[in-house]
């Protein structure tokens, strides 16, 4: 038995492209790479079809203009930049807004069955921060539809190979329940492969490949209260750092305003924003619809000031302004937090989200079936009759691998990143619905990016260095070899609690500093965790291995949160409550040197004049310095004011 447990034997495979992650972005990237004729592997920690994307509810944002013909890519671009408080990489936001409709239509051609408009087109729904109804959706299970469609597309490609080669896995193969723990490079610093273990058997596996696409999703498991699944231990973020790539915007973590708060065991599970898009409102324990008190100046012009106007908007959006419940998520989450802090929360420490008093049971059941099911089964609450109790939950990380917008390439040759693990697209705050569309837009681009890289590479393939492989094996075996040590479960749980308390929705210098010094202690404990048992499907071992990644990510988040002395989007500093035009010009970039994380300030790319001109100067001046606006078509207006 001892031999089995410590065996260093490695299964080897050779591919052109290895995609790590089988969510929306990974599958889309793999489909593209395979369509470009490359031999492609898809690797996933979970079973095929179960990646985190399956949980997405509300929809995918694409300016198809099916419901409101005034919508177009420029409007979508503007909304995305506003939502991200102008910290977004403008090129990414532009590509995203332009290409999202094609990517959604393509899904339909691959078998996705979206909800329909009266004239038979794809229906689109309202969501926070989107000026027009823009989210293609299927009830409140859009992520399931996306992942199933892409999964079935992969199967269709395999069927084509069955006919052509007699082998469905000739050119695209899924390695499910397989975890990558290290990326490997050649001596010249180019990607050469990926190393990991197969969960079922515990055996090691090496994928030799010149191109690796990271599509590993987010980091939510680093926080206690989260809507994210166990997969979200920040593996891709950590793998990228360890391979020498750079992370950006890690201080920006989105706390979704509406997570379940009761019972305790489901605390954090998401309540979709569609509840508000479809008419739900937020109330405090005094029964007051409080969001009207929290509309910030930068959004004043677009949001209703009275309940009457807000209510008229659902049926007549052209002549009324939006209800403040549909402000971007960071605003709503902070407002809820303030209400709870002021003592106007519900018995279980949330606020009320009420759709029961506003829509008929039939409407609620067709528009929000999963929410009805979720509350009924998990909390004994009938949302057609009673309000829900909700509060903020850690939901999405805007930060991620710094990539080239057009090709998704990182700074390491052969390494690409896409989906939630990549950074830049969403700036300081992501709009709901913009992730699912991000996945398919940049998924395709990453597949193309990898294919182009490989053609440029020619015949010479980067080779793995044996010593690196040995190190990876030793590292992975360590927790199993330690006879006794701390339980990885305990370290996980405490780390999550600390991050939640100290680097959560609202941050303060002293608390973040405490978090950073605590992290040092966690690192020491992580170094001695032990996982008794065998290699095959041993969750204790898996947890022990995940800790390295969670700790690296936690440190990046805390470091950047301490550095940025302003509040913007998914980063709120109690001690620096305002937004600063000077800080807007800065991206915080993190990289790993030895075992030390280094952080530098990097200027953000400037907005091209034609993109700048899509906004009124009166809006831009709330975010930007005068010098930055010198090229704007209305720059003269700025001068006159002074």
């Amino acid at each position: 038995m001892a031999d089995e447990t410590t065996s260093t034997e490695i299964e080897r495979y050779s591919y052109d492209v290895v995609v790590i992650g089988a969510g929306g972005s990974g599958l889309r990237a793999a489909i593209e790479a395979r369509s470009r004729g490359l031999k492609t592997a898809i690797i996933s920690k979970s079973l095929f079809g179960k990646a985190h994307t399956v949980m997405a509810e509300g929809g995918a944002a694409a300016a198809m203009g099916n419901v409101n013909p005034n919508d177009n890519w420029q409007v979508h671009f503007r909304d995305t930049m506003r939502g991200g408080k102008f910290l977004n990489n403008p090129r990414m936001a532009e590509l995203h807004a332009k290409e999202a409709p094609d990517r959604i239509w393509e899904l339909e051609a691959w078998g996705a069955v979206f909800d329909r408009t009266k004239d038979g087109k794809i229906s689109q729904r309202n969501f926070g921060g989107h000026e027009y109804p823009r989210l293609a959706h299927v009830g409140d299970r859009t992520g399931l539809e996306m992942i199933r469609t892409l999964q079935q597309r992969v199967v269709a490609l395999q069927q084509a190979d069955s006919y052509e080669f007699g082998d469905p896995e000739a050119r695209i193969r899924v390695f499910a329940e397989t975890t990558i723990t290290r990326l490997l490079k050649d001596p010249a610093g180019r990607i050469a492969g990926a190393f990991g273990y197969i969960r079922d058997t515990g055996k090691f596996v090496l994928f030799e490949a010149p191109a690796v696409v990271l599509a590993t999703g987010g980091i939510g498991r680093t926080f206690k209260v989260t809507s994210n699944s166990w997969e979200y231990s920040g593996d891709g973020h950590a793998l990228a750092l360890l391979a020498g790539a750079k992370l950006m915007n890690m201080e920006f973590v989105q706390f979704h305003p509406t997570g379940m708060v009761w019972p305790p065991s489901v605390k954090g599970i998401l309540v979709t924003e569609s509840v508000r898009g479809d008419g739900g409102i937020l109330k405090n324990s005094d029964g007051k619809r409080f969001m009207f008190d929290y509309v910030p100046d930068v959004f004043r012009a677009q949001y209703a000031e009275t309940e009457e106007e807000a209510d008229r908007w659902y049926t007549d959006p052209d002549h009324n302004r939006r209800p403040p419940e549909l402000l971007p998520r960071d605003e709503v989450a902070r407002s809820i937090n303030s209400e709870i802090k002021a003592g106007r929360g519900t018995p279980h420490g949330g606020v009320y989200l009420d759709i029961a008093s506003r829509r008929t049971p039939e409407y609620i059941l067709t528009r929000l079936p999963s929410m009805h099911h979720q509350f009924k089964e998990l909390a004994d609450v009938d949302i057609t009759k009673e309000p829900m109790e909700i509060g903020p939950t850690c939901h999405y990380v805007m930060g991620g691998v710094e990539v080239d917008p057009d090709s998704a390439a990182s700074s390491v040759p052969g390494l690409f990143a896409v989906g939630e693990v990549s950074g830049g697209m969403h700036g300081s705050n992501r709009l709901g619905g913009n992730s699912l569309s991000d996945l398919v837009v940049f998924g395709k681009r990453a597949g193309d990016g990898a294919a182009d890289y490989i053609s440029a590479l020619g015949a010479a393939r980067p080779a793995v260095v044996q010593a690196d492989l040995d190190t990876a094996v030793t590292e992975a075996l360590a927790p199993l070899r330690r006879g006794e040590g701390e339980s990885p479960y305990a370290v996980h749980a405490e780390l999550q609690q600390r991050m939640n308390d100290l680097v959560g929705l609202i941050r303060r210098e002293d608390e973040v500093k405490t978090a950073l010094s605590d992290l040092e202690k966690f690192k020491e404990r992580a170094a001695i965790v032990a996982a008794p048992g065998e290699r095959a499907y041993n969750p204790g071992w898996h947890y022990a291995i995940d800790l390295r990644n969670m700790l690296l990510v936690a440190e990046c988040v805390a470091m950047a949160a301490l550095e940025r002395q302003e509040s913007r989007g998914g980063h709120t500093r109690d001690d620096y409550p305002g937004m600063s035009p000077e800080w807007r010009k800065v991206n915080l970039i993190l990289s790993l040197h030895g075992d030390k994380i280094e952080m530098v300030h990097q200027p953000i790319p400037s907005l091209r004049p034609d993109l700048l001109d899509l906004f009124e100067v009166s809006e831009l001046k709330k975010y930007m310095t005068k010098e930055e606006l010198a090229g704007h078509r209305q720059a003269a207006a700025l001068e006159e004011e002074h």
Partner: protein
Amino acid sequence: MGYLAKLRVWRGDAGSGSLQDYKVEVNEGEVVLDVLHRLQATQASDLAIRWNCKAGKCGSCSMEINGMPRLGCMTRMSTFTEVETLTITPMRTFPVIRDLVTDVSFNYAKAREIPSFTPDPSVKPGEFRMRQEDVNRSQEFRKCIECYLCQNTCHVIRDHEENKESFAGPRFLMRIAELEMHPADEADRRDIAQEDFGLGYCNITKCCTEVCPEHIKITDNALIPMKERIAGRKYDPLVWLGSKISMRPKSKGTPAVPGKR
């Protein structure tokens, strides 16, 4: 509020295994998966459980609780009394990998044999027009989270390993129905539903429908209508042609995709 629940959990691997007794703390509002996680964290760190979303959305945590096929994350502890012993075992129809985790590759193999969505190639992306009424049925079936609880339950394969070769199970017969009822699909899977995927084995006991956590009416809305379509075709091939015409081969339906199991 909290109490100690008596759990009897199957531990073992493909070779052998047995039920083991544990006592685990339970708190208000918890589901079976919470309690299994506490068991992992406090007493059995290597207990193998497959799960992912813990919100009933991914279909990973299928298991048998007191013999009933269920999702661990959607089964509340309050559905049991505090004194009863909960017996938790892996799905019986699939081979065990370890503890509560089974090898569900059978399902992926079947999925790969069903001819994929086949639209009219002249319709460009963005040009599809379908009415909501016409997609409702396919949408109901697409709610499937692939938990395979229906597959696990269906008696045709639950106790008959030998039938697995010729029977795809309710989930995949429903997939065929979904494609057949898709207004933009042009293939004809009726022959293969019967001949390659074993629709004839189904004697409409509805056990699959009963365990479906998505409350999909598998038998009434997918299996029985498929049987009717096939009966109709055998009787008069023109009856069920409906709006699907262009790609349809004259005599035979679309063939199954050759598999590699």
